[in-house]
């Protein structure tokens, strides 16, 4: 371009010299955004230029997903030009999912939130810019005012969950602790019932290395859809298939995973526990149990066997599940007689009022057949073995003299509200009431069940602060929005709750506009708080983000990853040197140290001691159709679907309905239909498909651009049976939700 510009240009005339003259100075003086380049300095960023002019950085997909992919980001001229999978990541193996490949479109969407802004009044859509300093000033003053009025910071509530699972993102909790005792949403929405089950049974959630699935001869995928939601597990399943393994998918929906299986069993929704117990009964009656394993590793077998003999029969299960007796028998026999039989208990399976009991019954199959801890076998759910970081950013002390909820021993703690009944509990809190919300890594209004109640809770606040990247229903109901960085704009480290790899997340580009990371926001708030009232916030302010990152590592993590310094992760992700099969040492983390078919811990929470059938939820006359709201292939919760590439492929939500049900309701393909219940209604076009059950409709949870469509408008905050033990609150029975279906 410079050459073209210079065409026909006199050599005697040098623009550089010209600029240095009086005329140039005058012209430069009129500039506000542009500035003269300092010719003494090179503006090119330092970096290893080994890839066609790109600087290449290692990133980690931090979303709430099994796969936690290794990403390579290609940066030129400070611009993230593309992302690709990191071939050095042994689990994700150089590939990303359809969502991951859109990342540059997320970073450079013109719709990103760019500056701190304030809405006047809340909900009006009238926004004006404020400086970071002003934003922090408003927030800090409100915090101090609340503390003055109520004598504590308990009226300040935080709702934060899985928008970014990077270890440094736990700084949000740390920031809250550093101002005093506050109110926190406690629990997790989507997997607590299963977590409790495995805690009762084995003392922890701890799945085998999922790469071990490649060695299985039989894989039962029970209520999971990895073809959409964990695409990097599929190659390991495929490898097993190529070696002759049989794959069985148990799911009410003929998912894309089901369509790739050898056998798909369309079970009646919520009756999986009956199937598992009937399988156990068959195994017991036909003496397929592993007596030696049970003797050495299991407590409570006798009680469980008595229960099975008294309460369970194949015919009962056949009626419950809708599966023929011979199918149940065949599955039980195949499972019992295949040494390398692996069960993957998915999260969908336990989003029911009986979900915890279901997972316990499934776990029991592994225990009585001695498959736990064996190659190619086991019952897989999730793990947290590679998450042993310091949580240095998260663990902060409140200022001395802070007042919180007083414990019996005189110590103080935070107040909690159930994350799965957030709006209602925020509204109900009255001693002291909740006056201010801080929302981060969470689209509270869209993602909590019962959207209307959440909105009412927001309306009752003095101040709502939301940290986000895009406008959404939560931001719409906030006073102040603070723009946050994407994963490419800050450093972090990420572990997976499924595979055994740990990735570093390097900062690849400058933060766009005025975006800050949650960590920088915490430091900015602390600076302002201490400026207004010295000692009012304990959060350290003079540490760089890289130093914060370094502080998250310890010898335990280093030993597990076989490294001496976290910087070694820049050369590639590392796999934890854990045994391939979880529990292979037989050291269960239960009170007895054994697998507990009989769990006293379970009884403390009001559950039967042994895995037992808990009655499934049923439709009512008024709301006769079950609403299933599984994860969507082009989105993850309320992320990704709003991006242009996704909107090009899938521009609006659809409700999947079986042709038989559609015919009864006189609904045709593309008709606008309405789903309603006590909470409200949603409308979308009908998609007729035989892949969904005849007694249910499927509406995927996803947030579309320019649309206020949210399945959670009609999803009730019905608790699942378990979750309180390990996560503080029971999970949500998302799939035990019933509606009326009508053509509009």
């Amino acid at each position, binding site marked *: *371009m*410079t050459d073209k510009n210079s065409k026909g240009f006199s050599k005697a005339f040098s623009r550089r010299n010209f600029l240095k003259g009086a005329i140039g100075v005058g012209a430069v003086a009129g500039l*506000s955004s*542009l*500035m003269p380049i300092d010719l003494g300095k090179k503006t090119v960023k330092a970096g290893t230029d080994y890839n066609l002019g790109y600087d290449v950085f290692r990133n980690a997909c931090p979303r709430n997903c099994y796969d936690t992919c290794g990403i390579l980001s290609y940066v030129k001229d400070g611009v993230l030009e593309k992302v690709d999978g990191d071939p050095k990541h042994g689990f994700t193996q150089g590939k990303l999912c359809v969502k991951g490949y859109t990342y540059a*479109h997320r970073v450079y*969407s013109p719709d990103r939130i760019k500056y701190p802004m304030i809405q006047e009044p809340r909900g009006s859509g009238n926004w004006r810019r404020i400086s970071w300093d002003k934003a922090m000033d408003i927030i800090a003053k409100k915090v101090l005012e609340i503390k003055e009025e109520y004598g504590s910071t308990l009226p300040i509530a935080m709702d934060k969950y899985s928008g970014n699972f990077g270890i440094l993102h736990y700084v949000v909790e740390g920031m809250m602790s550093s101002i005093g005792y506050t109110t926190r949403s406690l629990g997790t929405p989507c997997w607590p019932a299963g977590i409790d089950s495995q805690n009762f049974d084995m003392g922890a959630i701890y799945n085998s290395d999922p790469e071990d699935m490649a060695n299985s001869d039989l894989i039962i995928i029970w209520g999971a859809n990895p073809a959409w939601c964990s695409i990097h597990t599929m190659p390991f399943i495929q490898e097993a298939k190529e070696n002759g393994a049989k794959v069985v998918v148990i799911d009410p929906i003929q998912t894309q995973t089901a369509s790739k299986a050898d056998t798909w069993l369309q079970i009646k929704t919520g009756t999986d526990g009956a199937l598992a117990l009937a399988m156990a009964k068959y195994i017991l009656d036909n003496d397929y149990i592993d007596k030696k394993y049970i003797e050495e590793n299991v407590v409570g077998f006798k009680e469980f066997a008595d229960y099975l003999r008294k309460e369970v029969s194949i015919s009962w299960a056949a009626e419950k599940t809708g599966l023929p007796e011979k199918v149940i028998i065949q599955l039980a026999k195949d499972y019992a007689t295949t040494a390398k039989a692996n069960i993957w208990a998915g999260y969908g399976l336990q989003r029911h009022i009986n979900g915890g009991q279901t997972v316990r019954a499934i776990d029991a199959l592994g225990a009585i057949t001695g498959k736990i801890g064996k190659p190619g076998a086991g019952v897989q759910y999730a793990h947290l073995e590679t998450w042993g970081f310091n949580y240095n950013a998260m663990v902060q002390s409140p200022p001395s003299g802070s007042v919180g909820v007083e414990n019996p021993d005189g110590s103080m703690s935070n107040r909690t509200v159930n994350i799965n009944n957030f709006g209602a509990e925020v509204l109900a809190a009255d001693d002291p009431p909740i006056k201010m919300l801080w929302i981060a890594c969470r689209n509270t209004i869209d993602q909590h069940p019962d959207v209307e109640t959440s909105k009412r809770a927001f309306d009752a606040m003095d101040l709502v602060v939301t940290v986000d990247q895009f406008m959404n229903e939560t931001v719409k109901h906030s006073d102040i929005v603070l723009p946050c960085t994407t994963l490419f704009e800050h450093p972090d480290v990420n572990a997976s709750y499924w595979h055994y790899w740990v990735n570093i997340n390097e900062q690849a580009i400058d933060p766009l506009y005025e975006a800050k990371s949650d960590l920088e926001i915490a430091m900015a708030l602390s600076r302002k708080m201490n400026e207004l009232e010295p000692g009012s916030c304990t959060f350290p302010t003079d540490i760089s983000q890289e130093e914060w990152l370094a502080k998250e590592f310890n010898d335990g993590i280093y030993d597990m990853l076989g490294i001496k310094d976290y910087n070694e992760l820049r050369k590639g992700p590392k796999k934890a040197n854990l045994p391939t099969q979880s529990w292979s040492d037989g050291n269960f983390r239960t009170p007895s140290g054994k697998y507990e078919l009989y769990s006293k811990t379970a009884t403390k929470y009001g559950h039967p001691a042994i895995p037992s059938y808990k009655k499934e939820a049923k439709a009512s006359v008024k709301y006769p159709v079950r609403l299933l709201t599984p994860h969507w292939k082009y989105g993850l919760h309320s992320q990704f679907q709003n991006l242009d590439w996704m909107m090009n492929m899938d521009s609006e939500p659809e409700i999947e309905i079986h042709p038989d049900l559609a015919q009864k309701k006189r609904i045709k393909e593309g008709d606008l239909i309405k789903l309603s219940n006590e909470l409200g209604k949603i409308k979308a076009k009908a998609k007729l498909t035989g892949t969904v059950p005849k007694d249910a409709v499927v509406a995927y949870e996803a947030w579309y651009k320019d649309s206020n469509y949210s399945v959670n408008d009609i999803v009730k905050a019905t608790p699942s049976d378990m979750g309180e033990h390990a996560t503080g609150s029971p999970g949500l029975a998302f799939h035990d939700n019933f509606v009326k279906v009508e053509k509009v």
Partner: protein
Amino acid sequence: MTSQFNEGLWKRRLHVLNKLKDMMLSNKDSIIHTRKISSFLTSLSEYDDYHSNEFFDQCWSLLENNVQNNESLWKEILFDFNRLFVGPDKLQAPPYESVYRDEGLIMGPSTLEVRNFYQSEGLKLENQGKEPDDHIGIELEFLSYITRLIIMSQEKQAEEEVNYYQELYEKFLNEHLLQWGLEFADLIIDKAETKFMKGVGLYLKGFLKEEELQVNS
């Protein structure tokens, strides 16, 4: 356009460019923004002879009775400005060239071409890498800078420089601002909720139409 130097025309251009660039850049401080609106309205009555096409006429008829010191109106204009160009909601009229030319994203190839243009003239964006280089306000600022150089060169009777910068002005206009500016201006006119911002859209359109005519004559 470059054949004959018309000093009056360049001075008027400079005036219009400066008013427009100030108007289009977003400010942290709402008070500055309010002053900008006021100054933009005042400037409309100056240099009447430049305002020679139908869009300027429409702008004028829309805004001539709007010149009043009214705080609530100014706030309304500010909110409208933010809906169009700043956020936090989806932008009604994204003010970045690459959004119109490169897959609807910022920081695309055309942004980098614009960056190279600035660099070739020894300039760079103060927030380079954080804010897109091809924001409407910055492209206008660059043209304003070139225009000042043209006028100053002429005062010094440096003919080669005058010709060089006039060519550069034309080239940047043709290769960049005119590639997207009219579509952008139409979006403002279409999406603005206040008369004032609609007027700004018409003013920008009027200016670009005028420049298009000049360049192609």
